[in-house]
């Protein structure tokens, strides 16, 4: 079955600390992978995406993610977290065709302590 797992429901980090949010997927086809961020009361904003090529991709707001096919993972990282990064983060997987539907993980809520 196709699925996306985000093992951490809540994560709390101190401002300035590094961050890694985990994402594992199960998908039959070559996956297209995404990370979205949702600030409170807002819609989802695309942070970054991976289709092919270099397995380390850079996104907006200083985020990066690494695709590891052998581990079926696409973890999101940031070297130094800012208070404004407090939000909910969603990992998603999809493929070309099939009406371009995406499968989303349940999300990880990030809290940032000053």
């Amino acid at each position: 079955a196709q699925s996306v797992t985000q093992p951490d429901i809540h994560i709390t980090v101190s401002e300035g600390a590094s961050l890694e949010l985990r994402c594992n997927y199960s998908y039959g086809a070559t996956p297209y992978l995404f990370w979205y961020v949702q600030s409170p009361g807002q819609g989802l904003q695309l942070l970054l995406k991976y289709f092919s090529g270099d397995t380390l991709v850079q996104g907006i707001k200083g985020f990066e993610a690494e695709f590891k096919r052998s581990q079926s993972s696409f973890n999101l990282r940031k070297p130094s977290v800012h208070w404004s990064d407090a939000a909910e983060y969603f990992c998603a997987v999809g493929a070309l065709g099939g009406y371009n539907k995406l499968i989303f993980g349940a999300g990880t809520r990030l809290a940032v302590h000053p």
Partner: protein
Amino acid sequence: DVKVTQSSRYLVKRTGEKVFLECVQDMDHENMFWYRQDPGLGLRLIYFSYDVKMKEKGDIPEGYSVSREKKERFSLILESASTNQTSMYLCASSFSGRAPEQYFGPGTRLTVT
């Protein structure tokens, strides 16, 4: 920039009322989607549309219907609202035949009392 707008940010309706949620995108996207978002459950697909007048059920279509009369507009209809439909509703759109990234509207928080 892609822009997806939703008709209301907040709505309060009574049980049994008919509710319309509208979504408009300005990027000529073929695909449009309606999700509901509940704490701990992530995003669940209600319905999607891949062309004008074409629609497909998602994972949780019960209690909902949709309409797409124009390419840029996709409406979600709750025929008879119930309290268990209190939720955040998110609309998204994407191109067909290209990478499946979706662009989201700001969401409508619907409360049914």
